[in-house]
C-alpha cells in the first residue's frame, strides 16, 4: 500500500490501518532518530514515542485532514520534534569526537569476505560518528535529505525553512562531514 492509499485507509479506520503504517515507517523513523541522536537506545525510545504521538494525533484529526496528510514528511516532523525535545532535556545530542579516534589502522581492503564486511561496518560506524559531530542545523537536514531521502520540498515542510536555505545547509553539512570523515581516516568518502 503506498502512502496515499495508507492515508485513505487511516481516515476510514485508524485502528485497522495504523499497524500497516507502523510496519511501513518504523525503520525510517528509527534511522532518523538514530542519526539525529546518535545513541541506539535513545533512538528506539524516540522512534516509539514519535509513532505513539502519531497515533494520538491521528485519533484527534478529522478524516478529511488525515486524507490530505503527506505521511513521510509528517512522520519525519514528529520524529525530529521528539528528538529535539529529548536533546533539550539535557542529553548530549551526539557522540563526542573521541568516538572517532583510537581505531586501528584499516586493514588492506579486499572486495568481499568477512574482513571486507567488517571493514564496511567499521567505515559505517566512523561515518555515523562523523555525522554526529555536525551541528544540529546541518545534521538534521543532511539526515532527512540523504538518509531518509526526502525531497527539498518535503524538507521545507518538516523544518519550516525555505528550500534555498535547506539546500545551502545540506551543502554545508556535507562539506563539514567530508572534513570530519577525512579526520577520522575515511578519505574515500570525499571522492
Amino acid at each position: 500500500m503506498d502512502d496515499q492509499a495508507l492515508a485513505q485507509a487511516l481516515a476510514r479506520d485508524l485502528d485497522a490501518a495504523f499497524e500497516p503504517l507502523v510496519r511501513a515507517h518504523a525503520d525510517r523513523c528509527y534511522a532518523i532518530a538514530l542519526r539525529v541522536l546518535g545513541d541506539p537506545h535513545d533512538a528506539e525510545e524516540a522512534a516509539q514515542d514519535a509513532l505513539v504521538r502519531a497515533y494520538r494525533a491521528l485519533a484527534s484529526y478529522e478524516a478529511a485532514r488525515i486524507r490530505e496528510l503527506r505521511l513521510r514528511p509528517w512522520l519525519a516532523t514528529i520524529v525530529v520534534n521528539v528528538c529535539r525535545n529529548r536533546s533539550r532535556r539535557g542529553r548530549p545530542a551526539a557522540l563526542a569526537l573521541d568516538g572517532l579516534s583510537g581505531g586501528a589502522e584499516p586493514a588492506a581492503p579486499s572486495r568481499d569476505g568477512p574482513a571486507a564486511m567488517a571493514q564496511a561496518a567499521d567505515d559505517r560506524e566512523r561515518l555515523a560518528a562523523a555525522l554526529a559531530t555536525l551541528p544540529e542545523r546541518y545534521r538534521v537536514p543532511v539526515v532527512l535529505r540523504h538518509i531518509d531521502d526526502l525531497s527539498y520540498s518535503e524538507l521545507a515542510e518538516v523544518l519550516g525553512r525555505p528550500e534555498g536555505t535547506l539546500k545551502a545547509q545540506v551543502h554545508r553539512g556535507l562539506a563539514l562531514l567530508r572534513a570530519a570523515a577525512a579526520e577520522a581516516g575515511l578519505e574515500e568518502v570525499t571522492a
Partner: protein
Amino acid sequence: MTADSARLTALAVSAPANLADDVLVEVGLADRIAPLPSAIGTLWVAWNGRGVAGVDLGDDGVAIAAEHAARTGRRTHVRDALPSGLASAVARRLAGDRRAQVRLDLRGRTPFEVAVWEKALEIPFGEVRPYGWVAVEIGRPRAVRAVGTALGHNPVPLLVPCHRVVRADGLIGNYSLGGPHNKRAILASEGLDPGALEDAARRGERLVGSDTTHVVCWPTCRHARRVSQRHRVTFRTLREADALGYRPCRACRPTAADAA
C-alpha cells in the same frame, strides 16, 4: 556528492525488531500477557498502554493468550513477566491497597457492564454486597440477573472485585475465576468467613444494626463490624429495621430489594 549520498544511505538502518510491536501495544492495538503468582494459582495478566485488559487463572499461558486474543480481537504476545511497576501495582491492589493505581482497558464493553464493574470497584476490601444492591445502585433495580451476567463476564476479575458480590439469600454464589471454591478462598484471604456469613444469612440475619446509633448496615460493612455484641441487633429485611426506627448506613447503603 553522489559518493556521499551513497555512503550516507548505508546509515539507514533497520529498527529493532520489537519497535513496531512496542508501538502497537503502547497505543492499545496489541496486548501482552504474563504470569503473576497468586494465592489461588498463576494469574495471567494481559495489558497494553491503555491499561490491564484481562486477568485469568490457569497454567497454559498460550491457551489463555489465545482466548484473550479471540475475545479482544487484538494480537496477544506471551511474556515471561509483567513490567515491574505493573506487577507491584497489581499485587498491592490485590492485597487491598486502594492507592495502587491500576488502569483498566475496558474498551468494547457495554455501558451497562462498565457501570456494574465500576460499582463493584466501590465495594471495600473485606466486604460483600448482594447482586441486587449493585442493580439498585446503578439505577437498574430490576436488572439483578443482568448484573450477575455482567459480573460473570468481568474480564479483569480480582482487579474488579466481582468476588465481593454475593447472592441475596446470603449464599456466596458462583464465580467465573475457577468456580465458587476460589470465591470463598479469595473472600477468606480478605478476612471474611464465608461459611459464617452463609450461616448468619440462613438464620435470617441479613442486616445488622446498632441499638445505640439506630443505623442499619450490610453485615460486612465496617460500621456493622464495629458494633459490640451487646448492642448488635439483626434484621431480616430493611422494612423490619425501618419499622423499628433504624436508618440505613450512608456508607454501605443497604437496599430493600435484597433484604426482602
